[in-house]
């Protein structure tokens, strides 16, 4: 454009040259390069991520199948920073021809499009783990599955990075007549095993709490650890729902208009959305100024914008909440009780709520006293859709909600806007069809006001339960203490009085003890306000 600004044109590349260099990048290549986006930042986190993705898959599929999950996890060291990971479940299994696609291709899955509460969503879990495995060890992953049809499938799979397609190393179907269902996956990875916070063990323990109906066995470097089932009831099966008009964006609306099977705008609105009946649909058309009989596929850009605005204006019912599958107080309590040794437990499940058109539900629980360490901050266990969140605690809406709730009112020590201190574990479970994570590592919830409000309401209810328990405990202790106080001072008082009045000391003592007996029968709380402001007087010599 400005000729004088061109330097060494001979050395620069022409538009033609540049064009030749352009090409498409496969999604596998992208994630291979950016594996930290999937949780494979370093060997320690990678080991946890692999176990987590596979166990989450197993729990999801068992729940889909309505069986009580039974899961085996093995992490076996293979030399320096190498592990063989095996996860086996009793889910429905997978039909033979589906296996390569489900595991050998990134962004392939059943849940991406669904508005329904599940653990995994984006088809990046197991395939991401396989990608990481082959990247760090070059080895294929073994998958064994049966669907209770008397046949067992064996696969050795890798992912063709350039095309994002499965590469089948070996494949066998054996007609062994065994009737079982489930899936077993085995891979070798670069990984580091740690103990304590953010470890595989901590993840499994927390998983056992929010999935008390699951039976999990872990064979790790420290031997065999069992998390026994604590309940024989599954939470209700979440239902898939259609999008709610309040929750969609203009771009998505346009795409929906494009691909709908509906022939008219009216039927598009009533069929493709939640909570839009004929009356609401007509009202939306009226507000937008569009003809209800318009062919949705022919709606123009500016018309779509009008429709979009009208949808946000018309009053509609909140989205249905049967897409959510909370644990409910009963299961939550069972989970806490089976894994934590405490003196008091409580749980709260809030009614469902909505943020940006997405239904969500908050529940929380507390374990207090017993073997929980009394020093230091309360431990917070965070969960989204029953999956423990182990990283980025400080950035998470749950941590913020705990810190900004006034726990001193409920009997825990707390500095302003900090996590409270004391012998307690606080658990918060956020259930939603679309969890607003702050980053793709999916470890912290975004602090939207609607979400913060619900979490805080849940925590306050929980706090009241704790406070009620502690008040009772204090009251019992107070009665005993009170009586002791009087008993301690009576001899001194009697001695002084006797010395001054020459009245028999023993006599005074007995009389006083009698009054003490009467007075400590019931708590006399009103007396505490009789003296006014005594402590504030000064004393100068």
């Amino acid at each position, binding site marked *: 454009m400005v000729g004088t600004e061109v330097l060494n044109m001979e050395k620069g590349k022409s538009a033609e040259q540049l064009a030749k260099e352009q090409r498409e990048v496969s999604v596998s290549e992208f994630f291979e390069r950016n594996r930290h986006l999937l949780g494979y930042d370093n060997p320690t986190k990678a080991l946890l991520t692999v176990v987590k993705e596979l166990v989450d898959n197993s729990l999801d599929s068992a729940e889909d199948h309505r069986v009580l999950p039974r899961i085996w996890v093995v992490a076996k060291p293979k030399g320096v920073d190498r592990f063989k990971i095996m996860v086996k479940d009793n889910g429905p299994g997978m039909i033979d021809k589906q296996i390569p696609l489900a595991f050998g291709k990134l962004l392939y899955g059943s849940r991406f499009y669904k508005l329904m509460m599940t653990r995994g969503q984006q088809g990046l879990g197991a395939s991401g783990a396989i990608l990481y495995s082959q990247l760090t060890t070059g080895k294929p992953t073994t998958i064994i599955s049966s669907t209770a049809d008397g046949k067992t499938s064996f696969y050795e799979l890798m992912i063709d990075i350039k095309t994002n397609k499965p590469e089948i190393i070996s494949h066998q179907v054996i007609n062994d007549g065994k009737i079982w269902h489930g899936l077993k996956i085995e891979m070798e990875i670069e990984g580091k095993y740690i103990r304590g916070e953010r470890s595989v063990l901590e993840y499994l323990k927390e998983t056992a709490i929010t999935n008390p109906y699951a039976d999990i066995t872990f064979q790790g470097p420290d031997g065999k650890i069992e998390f026994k089932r604590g309940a024989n009831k599954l939470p209700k099966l979440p239902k898939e729902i259609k999008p709610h008009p309040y929750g969609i964006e203009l771009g998505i609306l346009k795409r929906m208009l494009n691909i709908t099977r509906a022939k008219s705008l009216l039927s598009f609105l009533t069929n493709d959305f939640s909570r839009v009946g004929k009356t609401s649909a007509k009202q939306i058309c009226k507000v937008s100024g569009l003809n209800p009989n318009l062919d949705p596929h022919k709606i123009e850009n500016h018309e779509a914008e009008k429709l979009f605005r009208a949808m946000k204006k018309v009053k509609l019912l909140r989205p249905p909440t049967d897409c959510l599958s909370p644990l409910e107080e009963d299961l939550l309590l069972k989970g806490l009780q089976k894994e934590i040794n405490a003196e008091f437990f409580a749980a709260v499940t809030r009614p469902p709520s909505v943020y940006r058109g997405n239904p969500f539900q908050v529940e929380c629980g507390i374990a207090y006293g017993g073997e929980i360490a009394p020093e230091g901050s309360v431990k917070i266990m965070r969960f989204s859709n029953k999956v423990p969140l182990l990283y980025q605690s400080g950035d998470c809406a749950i941590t913020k909600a705990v810190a900004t709730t006034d726990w001193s009112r409920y009997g825990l020590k707390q500095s302003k806007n900090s996590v409270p201190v004391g012998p307690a574990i606080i658990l918060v479970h956020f259930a939603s069809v679309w969890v607003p994570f702050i980053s793709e590592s999916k470890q912290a919830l975004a602090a939207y006001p609607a979400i913060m409000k619900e979490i805080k309401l849940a925590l306050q209810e929980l706090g009241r339960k704790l406070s009620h328990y502690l008040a009772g405990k204090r009251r019992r202790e107070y009665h005993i203490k009170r009586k002791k106080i009087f008993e*301690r001072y009576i001899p001194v008082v009697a001695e002084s009085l006797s010395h001054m009045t020459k009245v028999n000391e023993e006599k005074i003592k007995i009389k006083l003890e009698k009054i003490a007996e009467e007075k400590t029968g019931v708590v006399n709380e009103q007396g505490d306000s009789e003296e006014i402001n005594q402590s504030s007087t000064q004393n100068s010599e």
Partner: protein
Amino acid sequence: MSKETQKKLINLAHKIVNEINHGVDPYLEIPIRSLTNVKWNEKDGLLRLGEKKSKRYFFNVAYARKFMQTLLIADFCKDLIEENIHTSIRDMYYNLKRTLPDTKENTFETQDESNPIIVDLETNLDTLRENLHLLADRKGIVAGNVKIKDRGDLIDWSKLGSGGWSIPSVVEDIKFVKVNAKFVLVIEKNAGFERLHEDKFWQKYNCILIGTGGQPARGTRRLIRRLNQEFKLPVYVLTDNDAYGVYIYSVIKSGSMALAHASEQLGTPSAKFIGLTPSDVKKYGLEKFTIKATDRDIKRAKELLNYPWFQNKEWQREIKLMIKTKRKAEIEALSARGLKFITETYLPEKLKKKEFLP
């Protein structure tokens, strides 16, 4: 006085035993000493305790311990009076401290616990600690044309060389043999006392010089009052120009909140303030020798502004000036004008022109 107090102690004990015999929760009635119950009596110019009292029941967890402690001290003082010995409140604390059987609890954990109980007892019995034979700390000094008799000794306050007579805690029994002075000059600082003493100020101006060494002890306050009441001597107070100095003056004049029950024995309502005032700083060009007032000084000055006895235009002007300039000045700042300025110019001028604050 002490014998009367002893009787009161025994009566109190009998009242309590009587209640106990009737199966009633025994109590002590203690006048409330907080702001709400201390009032300035405009007529006599003194802070006084009002009528409000609180009842401390033994069988109330909040008061049981204090009840027990009050009786311990009452019994102790009864013995002191009986045996006619005096003791410091610190000695008393140690004497009464002991561990309650089968506990780790002591009758008193620190002296901060026993000190307020003494005041409780003083107010309950309407007496003074001196009558309970309890001594406070001593620290005042006096010199001047006065002869007294104390414990059989004849003491001449004008014949003490460069020293002075150290004022004891209890001055009740002092007999004034000869008082040949026209006024009393009270100085906040012992260094100032020495300066004036060296220049024989008390001789030149025929006065009694009293150094308080900071906030005056009870004995010193009582001595000032006695000289004022019994010999009608005007009292002039010289302090630093700061909120603390004004407060010292205020205590000498009207009494203090904490000892409101004793104002009648300790206060000297007719005392006048001779300096240093904020106006003096300007008048004598001492601005450069002032010190920045702290936030606490300012806070205190703002409180002074509300004292009923400072509700006159002179004090309001001076205190407001103190708050506005945010500066304070020590008595010694006068030395910037010359070492003998205080004795040869400042005080004589003030006395001559009667430049006092009320």
